[in-house]
C-alpha cells in the first residue's frame, strides 16, 4: 500500500537501528505521547530491537485512557434514558464505569446486575450505537426528531475539528435534539505537567503526528525551550518511529533541545488553520480532569457559552456524578511514564482485556492492552 509499505521496510529499519546503536552512549528516557505510537512500537517489536541504554515510556495520548471514570458513569446514565440514542466511537463502548458488576452466584447460574459499560447498556435494550463520525450522529438526530441523540465527544486535538463541525452543523440546522458529552483534552499542557512533576524521568518526547497535523507544532517550541528537551513530531509507521527516536537521541547526545518535525509529509508548523478556526468557534479552553493524573489547568476544551445548548451534561443534569477509581490500578503512573504496565500488581492477573480494571487495558491504544496483547508480560504469568 502506498505511503505505508515504504515505512515498514526491513532494510531501512536495519539502517536506522544501526545508526541508533552507534549514537546511543548514555542512558536516555524518551516518551512517545500517542497511544497509536505505543502500539506501533510494541506491535512491530521496535521496543525489543533498540539498544538497552534507551528506555521508551508510554505517554498519556490515549483518549480512552484519560477520560475520567465519572464521565463514563455519566455516559452510562445518559445512555440508559429511554428517549436517548447514545452514539460513540467503537473503543469507548467497552470502557467500564465505576459500578463493578456484582454477581449473585446460585448453584446453577450467575446473575449479573447493572451494565458495566456501554455495550452492556446496549445488551439490556437501550439504544447505543457505534458511529464512525460525529457527523453521522447529527444525521441520526435529523432522522429521529422525536429522540435525543447524544455523541460521546472524547479525544485530543485530533478529533476536536470533527466534533466542533458536528456541533456547528447541528446549530445551523437548528437541531434541538442533538448534544455532545464532551471530554476533550490537549497535549501541550499534559507535557508541561509531566515535565514539571518532581518524579519526572522523561528527557525527550516524540510528539503525536496527528495532533500536530491539526494544531501545528509552534505550541511546543516554548515547552522545549523552557524545559530544555528535544521534541520530535513523529508519525505512526515503524520507520517514522525509528526516525523520530533517532532524531531525539541525536539531540540528547549532542545536548540540543528544540522542536524537529519528522512527520513533514503531514505536519506544518502552523497546522490546519481552517480546523483551528472551527475549534475556536465552538470550543474554549478549560481545566480538565485527566484520569489517573488529576486536574491539569487549561488542558481541555468545553463548549463556548453560545453552544452550551449542545452540552449533554447540562441537558441531562449529570454534572454532579462522581466516581471512585480502583485502588489497585496504577494507570496514572503508567500514563505519566513512571511505571511500565507489567510493574502493576494487577496486570495480567486481576486486570486483563476481557476484565479490565483501568482504561489503559481497555482501549486499543492503551499501553496495558498493548503489553498484554503482544506478550510483553515481564515476569507475569498470563491469564492467572
Amino acid at each position, binding site marked *: 500500500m502506498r505511503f505505508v509499505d515504504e515505512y515498514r521496510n526491513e532494510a531501512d529499519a536495519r539502517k536506522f537501528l544501526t545508526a541508533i546503536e552507534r549514537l546511543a552512549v548514555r542512558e536516555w528516557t524518551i516518551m512517545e505521547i500517542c497511544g497509536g505510537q505505543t502500539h506501533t512500537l510494541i506491535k512491530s517489536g*521496535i521496543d525489543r530491537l533498540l539498544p538497552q541504554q534507551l528506555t521508551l515510556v508510554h505517554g498519556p495520548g490515549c483518549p480512552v485512557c484519560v477520560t475520567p471514570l465519572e464521565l463514563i458513569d455519566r455516559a452510562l446514565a445518559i445512555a440508559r434514558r429511554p428517549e436517548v440514542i447514545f452514539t460513540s466511537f467503537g473503543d469507548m463502548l467497552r470502557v467500564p464505569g465505576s459500578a463493578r458488576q456484582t454477581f449473585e452466584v446460585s448453584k446453577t447460574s450467575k446473575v449479573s446486575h447493572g451494565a458495566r459499560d456501554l455495550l452492556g447498556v446496549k445488551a439490556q435494550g437501550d439504544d447505543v450505537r457505534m458511529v464512525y463520525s460525529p457527523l453521522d450522529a447529527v444525521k441520526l438526530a435529523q432522522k429521529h426528531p422525536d429522540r435525543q441523540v447524544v455523541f460521546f465527544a472524547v479525544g485530543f486535538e485530533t478529533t476536536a475539528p470533527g466534533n466542533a463541525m458536528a456541533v456547528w452543523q447541528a446549530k445551523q440546522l437548528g437541531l434541538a435534539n442533538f448534544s455532545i458529552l464532551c471530554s476533550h483534552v490537549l497535549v501541550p499542557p499534559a507535557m508541561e505537567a509531566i515535565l514539571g512533576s518532581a518524579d519526572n524521568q522523561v528527557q525527550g518526547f516524540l510528539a503525536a503526528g496527528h495532533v500536530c497535523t491539526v494544531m501545528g507544532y509552534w505550541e511546543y517550541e516554548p515547552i522545549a525551550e523552557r524545559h530544555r528537551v528535544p521534541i520530535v513530531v513523529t508519525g505512526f509507521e515503524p520507520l517514522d518511529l525509528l526516525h523520530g527516536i533517532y532524531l531525539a537521541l541525536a539531540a540528547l547526545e549532542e545536548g540540543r533541545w528544540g522542536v524537529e518535525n519528522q512527520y513533514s509529509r503531514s505536519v506544518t508548523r502552523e497546522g490546519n488553520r481552517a480546523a483551528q478556526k472551527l475549534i475556536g468557534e465552538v470550543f474554549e479552553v478549560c481545566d480538565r480532569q485527566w484520569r489517573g493524573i488529576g486536574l491539569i489547568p487549561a488542558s481541555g476544551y468545553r463548549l463556548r457559552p453560545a453552544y452550551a445548548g449542545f452540552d449533554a451534561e447540562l441537558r441531562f443534569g449529570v454534572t454532579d456524578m462522581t466516581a471512585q477509581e480502583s485502588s489497585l490500578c496504577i494507570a496514572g503512573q503508567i500514563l505519566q511514564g513512571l511505571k511500565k504496565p507489567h510493574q502493576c500488581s494487577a496486570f495480567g492477573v486481576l486486570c486483563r482485556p476481557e476484565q479490565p480494571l483501568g482504561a489503559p487495558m481497555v482501549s486499543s491504544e492503551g499501553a496495558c492492552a498493548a503489553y498484554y496483547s503482544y506478550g510483553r508480560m515481564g515476569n507475569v504469568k498470563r491469564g492467572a
Partner: protein
Amino acid sequence: MHSAFSLQCPIPISDYPTITLAHGGGGKLSQMLVERMFAPAFACPELEILHDGAALDFGLTHIDEQSAICNLQSATRLAFSTDSYVISPRFFPGGDIGSLAIHGTVNDLAMCGGRPLYLSAGFILEEGLPMDELWRIVQSMSAAAKAADVRVVTGDTKVVERGKGDGIFINTTGVGLIPAGVQIAPTRARPGDIVLVNGPIGAHGIAVMSVREGLEFETAIESDSAPLHTLAADILAAGGEAVHVLRDPTRGGVASALNEIAARARVGILLDEAHIPVQEEVQAACAILGFDPLYVANEGKCLAIVGRSAAVPVLAAMRAHPLGQQAAIIGEVADGQPGKVFLRSRIGGLRMVDMLSGEQLPRIC
C-alpha cells in the same frame, strides 16, 4: 413445475408480498412455499418433500468419476458439521446469507478432509420478510449448492412473529465422507511443519462491515466467500498424509484459528508478517478502522499446516487452483512456546499474536 432458475419468484407476490405466520403454520401456505420455492430450487432424487427426512444411498451415485478423491469408495469415516447463519446485512458484495450458508458448511466438512455430499437447510423466517428477498436467497443457495456439488436433501421452515427474528436465519448441517488415509486434526501440527494460506486475508469481514456500517471505500471490497472442498482435495492429493491440519479461519480470523491449533497441538507457531497476503483495499480499510487483518473474518480461506517436505508441492497445488492463485507460505510450527502464536514483523521485530478478546472495535483516532 417451476424451474429452479426461473427469474421470477414462484409465489404470487401480489397475494403474498411478505412472509406471514401462516407460511410456517403447516397448512396450505407452508406447502406452497415448500413446493413452489424450496423443492424446485434444491431438486434432487433424495429430496422427498413430503417426508420428514431423506434416505441416502451410500452408493454415492452423484459423485462424478473424475473426482480428485479416487478412494472414496473405501471411505470409512463420516464428516459431520452444523452451522447457523445470522449475518446482517443479508446481501453483501461477493455473496449473501444463502451462498454463505452453503459455503460455510461445505468448508467445515472440507476442513475435516471430507468430501461434502449432503446438506440440510433449516430456515427461521421473520414475519414480514419480503418474499422476493427469500426467493433471491434460496436461488443463491441453490446455485451455491450446485457449484459445490452438494445436495440439499432435507429441510425445515419456521416463521416467528415480527420483531422476534432478524429477517432470516439459516441453519445448514452437512455430511461428507473422509477418504481412507486422510488424517486431518488440529492436534497433528508438529514442530517443523509449514503454515500456508490460499490467498489474501480479511476480505469477508471488511466487505460485510462496510455494508452494515455504511462505510464507503473507493473500490468496493468483495467477500471471499467460496466453497473450498476442491481446493482441500487438491491439497490432500499433493501432500497426502503430510497434510496435518486444514482450517478455514472464519470468525476471529487467522490469528484466532492459529491460536486454537497451537493450543490443541501444544506447539508454537511463528508467522512472517511480510509473507501474509492482504489485499491493498483491505489493508487500507483496516488502517482506517484500527483493525488488524489477522483478526478479520474470512469465508473462502484455507490454512494448511503440512510437513516440511510437502510444503512445495502443496503450495504448487494451491496456486494451480482458481481459489489459490495467491497462496503463500506464511509461517511455521516452532519448537517451544507451546500454545502461543508469534509474528515476525515486517521490520524484523517479534511479537505475540493473541486470541481476540471480544470484537474488534473501531478506534477513536
